[in-house]
């Protein structure tokens, strides 16, 4: 729930409402009326830093102008140039509301109601806040604050409202919550008088002539709503505006502090604050949020720093411990270097010993254990090859009676040799005449 302070300048007094705002529900917590000349002191004392203001602009300009049907950004430019024609040589700030479109001479045009105030008037009001270190979120003209109460809960499409603001009295005409017309006049009586009725009727007539609409009711707002016993009749039903159910306060408080209370519900489009002050508000908010974020991050960094330095201190302790544990590394390295020097001459010998060489013993044992049957080996040659294999050649004689027996013996020997591991028979030849044979084989040595 946001706490908000709304201020309304009404003649010689300033009305202040401290309220909490939740959605569209306003709960007035405190309301006070301060003389205008003491308001600066009040601002200095007040703890709240942000205000919503309903300003009292002695010089204001409002009218309905007809423009071509254009987009919003062009409409604002057109309005600005049109208003400049009225407020010659004056800087001004304005708000506007589209009334509607109509056809004039076969041309579609748009009716726009504008409300302009010299920037100086806005600056004078806002400077009172800024010079006391406060910020203003929005500044609304009184009519627009009051018109915020004419929403869905009020029956009828068009309404008229009358309220007091200091000595001046304001009558305004709205349709669907949009302000169409404003009449300001001075009234010397606190209660509703014939003069008021006359002004109300004039306004109704004017609006009917110009907009072809009559208000469904004329609502008396604020203190004037407590008026009783007037015999004159208005041309539309006259009533006091009931307190909306979303504003929580006493009825008397609502009547007295109507404008500041209503300003809490006023839409952004009614904010007449000049662009420069909007920028100031934005920048001040940005700086305030940024400072808050910086301070939060600062605390976070300090926390992390503490964490990092705590870890660093632990690491330092562990390093000291490791230093104490370790032996004299220089001495150990020196010892290792001495050994390296000693082993140096042996390195070629170690490499030589580790170099694989073809071994003859194993295949010779294998051949010796082979059953040669009727064959007799008369000569054995073996030589080493570059691929670590051995070439073995057997020369021999077959002791067989016939050729088939000779063939069988030879086959038997070959089969026996094939059983040996790593032996591959490359060639064989038999001389039938001499009954001799030659067998060439390859033995792959195991590394």
């Amino acid at each position, binding site marked *: 729930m946001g706490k908000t302070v709304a201020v309304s300048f009404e003649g010689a007094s300033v009305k202040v409402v401290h309220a909490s705002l939740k959605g569209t529900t306003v709960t007035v917590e405190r309301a006070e009326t301060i003389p205008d000349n003491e308001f600066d002191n009040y601002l200095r004392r007040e703890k709240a830093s942000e205000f919503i203001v309903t300003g009292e602009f002695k010089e204001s300009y409002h009218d309905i102008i007809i423009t071509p049907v254009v987009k919003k950004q062009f409409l604002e430019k057109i309005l600005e140039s049109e208003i400049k024609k009225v407020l010659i040589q004056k800087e001004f700030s304005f708000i506007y509301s589209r009334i509607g479109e109509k056809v004039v001479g076969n041309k579609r045009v748009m009716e726009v109601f504008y409300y302009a105030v010299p920037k100086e008037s806005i600056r004078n009001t806002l400077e009172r806040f800024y010079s006391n270190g406060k910020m203003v979120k929005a500044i609304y003209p009184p009519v627009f604050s009051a018109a915020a109460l004419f929403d869905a809960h009020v029956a009828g499409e068009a309404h008229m409202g009358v309220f007091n603001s200091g000595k001046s009295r304001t009558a305004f005409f709205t349709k669907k919550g949009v302000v169409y017309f404003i009449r300001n006049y001075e009234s010397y009586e606190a209660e509703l008088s014939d003069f008021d009725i006359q002004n109300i009727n004039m306004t109704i007539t004017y609006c009917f002539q110009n907009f072809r609409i009559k208000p469904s009711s004329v609502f008396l707002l604020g203190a004037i709503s407590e008026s009783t016993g007037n015999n004159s009749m208005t041309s539309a039903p006259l009533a006091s505006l009931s307190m909306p159910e979303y504003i929580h306060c006493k009825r008397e408080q609502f009547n007295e502090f109507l404008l500041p209370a209503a300003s809490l519900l006023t839409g952004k489009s009614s904010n007449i604050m000049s662009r420069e002050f909007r920028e100031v508000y934005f920048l001040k908010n940005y700086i*305030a949020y940024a400072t808050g974020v910086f301070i939060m991050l600062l605390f976070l960094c300090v926390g992390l720093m503490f964490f990092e330095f705590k870890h*660093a201190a632990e690491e330092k302790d562990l390093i000291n411990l490791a230093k104490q544990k370790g032996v004299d590394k220089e001495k150990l390295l020196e010892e290792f270097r001495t050994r390296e020097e000693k082993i140096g001459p042996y390195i070629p010998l170690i490499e030589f010993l580790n170099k694989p060489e073809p071994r003859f013993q194993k295949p*010779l044992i294998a051949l010796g254990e082979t059953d040669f049957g009727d064959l007799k080996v008369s000569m054995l040659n073996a030589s080493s090859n570059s691929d670590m294999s051995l070439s073995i050649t057997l020369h021999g004689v077959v002791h067989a009676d016939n050729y088939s027996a000779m063939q069988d013996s030879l086959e038997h020997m070959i089969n026996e040799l094939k059983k040996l591991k790593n032996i591959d028979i490359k060639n064989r030849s038999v001389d039938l005449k001499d009954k001799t044979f030659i067998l060439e084989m390859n033995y792959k040595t195991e590394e």
Partner: protein
Amino acid sequence: MKYFKYLKNVFPLYIISGILLGLAFFSLIAGHRYKNNLQDTRNNMENINLKEEEIRKEINRVDSLILHFQDNFGIREKVVNSEKLILHALDEMKIHFNSASIIVSGFEDIAGEKQLPVEIRIPVNSYLSVIDCIKYIESFRLPKYRIKSLSMLEEQLGGVILDIQGGLVMPAGATN
């Protein structure tokens, strides 16, 4: 900006908090790096302590290797004389094969090795004795006897001759 005067009271805190945040942030980075460096140093020191054990093992292995060369191959000098070792082996071989004919030519340096070509012709009376001869020859480690070829031939008068062609080999780099 002409409305700066409305902001001047919020600026000092904004600037000061910004500067302090910047300082704190850089200090945090510096602290983080310092801690990381300390961590690396500690890890390195622990690694060194772990490697100390490995270095000790390596020193012991080198010691035992040197002892092995000294005990098994009789190599005690810092510089090994290859020719001397080859000739020593040849003498041993001659003593072992007293009935064999051993033909020796001159030393050769081939592919970084010192070689002494040695041909051995041994009369053998059984296949078992052939295997014994080969076993003995192949038992040489330093120098090695590298067999190029061998052949068993029946002599006309009877009996078998084992003819082994090869040479005694040592690494040439080990020669004085």
